Structure formats: C-alpha cells, structure tokens
C-alpha cells in the first residue's frame, strides 16, 4: 500500500496510470449515465407528491455530491502535497478545482429549476442553498489565488493552504442547515429529505451517482495528465513521451 502510494507520487508513473485509467472511467461513465438518464426520465414512476418534477433529482443529486466530493478531493490532494512535499498533489488539486466548481454551478442551477415548481421560487435563502453558494465562492477563491501568483509553485502552495482552511468551513456551513433554521424564523422547509424510494426510482439514481463519479475520474485523469505535462515540460521523460 505504502509502496503503491509512493510510486503514484512520481509524475511519470501517475501520468501513465491516469492515461491507462481514462478509457475505463469514460466507458463506465457513459454506460451508467446513459442507463440512468433513460431509466430515470422515461421508465421510473412519477413521484406521488412531486409528479414528474422529481426527475430533476437524477442530475441534481449527483451534481451536488460531486461538488462536495470535488472540494474534498482538492483539499486532500493539496494537504498531501503540502505535508509530504509530493508535487503531483498540486497537479491533482489544480485539476480537481474547475471540475468541482462546474458541478457546484450545476447543482445550484438544477436545484433552482427544481425549486420553482416545488416551493414557488427559483431561489430561497435556505441554509442548504446558501451553503452550496458559499462552496462555489470557496472554489472561486482557490482558483483565483492559484492564478494570482507569478511563481506557479507559490500559487500552488497558497491555494492548497486555502483549500485546507476552506474544508474546515464545509461542515460548518453544511450543519448550519439545522442551526440556522432553529434560529431564523420563516425558513423554507426543504422537502428533499430522504424519502423511502422504491427500487424503480432508486436504481437509476444510484447509477447516475456512480456514473458521475466515474465521469469525475475520467475528466480528472485527463486534466491531471495535462497539468503534469505542463509542470514537467523541461524534464526528459516528458519530451520522450511527447516525441514518441
């Protein structure tokens, strides 16, 4: 396990591993998302309360899941890079940030389109919506901090540190769902909860969740490869790989 981890920390090895994994992730993602969309949109029964509007869950929940997973992955990669001075960690963190930010935006937009028919408004200052918006701002901060430095190494380290500091904030904003509601009157009650779903609704959702995870893996692999190429462009192994 430890040796495996160490080998993965070497840029050429990670570059090759990511390249080998990409088609598998992409293939699994295509199958799972394709099945989930068709089954979820066409064949799953409509919800007895929400009718067909509930079908938005098939893109909303996986997006929201990836928005949190992407941030955590980014922060963990940054922490590994900072603590053990493993440089490819910065490449992974830099690759994960834009993917996570895009899915945060997707979760916000699809959630807002779901909110209109259900609560009668596109946007409510509900804790969960607000915390997701804060997550988007955290992503923006991390991405722009990396770009603000002329020295890329310094930008990497600074944004990794900010990512770690921000991850402390994620559970705080997340749990404020309960605190804020109990303190503030008149908050919109979310009816998303965790209803007991019949299997015909649940299977496409699980497929979409797994499919989005695989999609994240595939895109992350391609981006990590691009980051490694750019960062290591002076090294001989990159030149051999590209010239071949």
């Amino acid at each position, binding site marked *: 396990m430890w040796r495996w981890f160490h080998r993965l920390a070497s840029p050429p090895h990670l570059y090759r591993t990511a390249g080998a994994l990409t088609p598998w992730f992409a293939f699994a993602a295509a199958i799972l998302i394709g099945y989930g969309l068709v089954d979820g949109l066409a064949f799953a029964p409509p919800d007895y309360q929400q009718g067909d509007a509930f079908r*938005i869950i098939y893109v909303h929940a996986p997006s929201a899941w990836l928005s949190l997973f992407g941030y955590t992955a980014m922060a963990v990669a940054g922490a590994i890079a900072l603590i053990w001075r493993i440089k490819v960690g910065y490449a992974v963190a830099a690759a994960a940030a834009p993917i996570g930010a895009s899915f945060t935006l997707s979760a916000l*937009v699809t959630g807002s389109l779901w909110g209109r028919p259900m609560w009668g408004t596109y946007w409510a200052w509900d804790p969960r919506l607000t915390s997701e918006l804060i997550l988007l701002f955290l992503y923006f901060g991390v991405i722009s901090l990396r770009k603000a430095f002329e020295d890329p190494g310094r930008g990497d380290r600074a944004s990794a540190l900010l990512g770690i500091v921000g991850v402390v904030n994620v559970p705080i904003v997340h749990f404020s769902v309960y605190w804020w509601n109990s303190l503030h009157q008149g908050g919109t009650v979310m009816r998303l909860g965790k209803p007991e779903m019949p299997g015909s609704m649940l299977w496409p959702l699980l497929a979409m969740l797994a499919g989005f995870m695989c999609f994240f893996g595939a895109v992350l692999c391609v981006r990590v490869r691009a980051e490694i190429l750019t960062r290591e462009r002076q090294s001989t192994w990159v030149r051999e790989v590209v010239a071949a």
Partner: protein
Amino acid sequence: MIRGGFWAMGGYARFVWPSIGFAVAVLLWNIWSARRHHARALVRVRRAIQMARSEES
C-alpha cells in the same frame, strides 16, 4: 408511454428539460475543457522541445 406525454413531463417540462440540459452541458463542457487543456499542454511541450533543439543547432 405516449411520446407527447414523455416530453410534457406531466406539465413540468419547463423545469425538467432545462435542468437536464444544463447538467448535460456541464458534462460536455468538462470533456471539452479537459481535452483542450491536454492539447494545449502538448503544444507547450512541443514548443519547449523545438526551442531546445534550435538552441543546440
């Protein structure tokens, strides 16, 4: 299942289809942007190789 009924989404078509569309657009953007990054990185490396060669000669 009637075709019209499917696209109408029980009257929620206005909300269901744009949100599916947006999510699919995000997926496609991710694919496009990752591939573009990779292509640009390759161009950069090739340029670095060429510069190194021209310095040698």
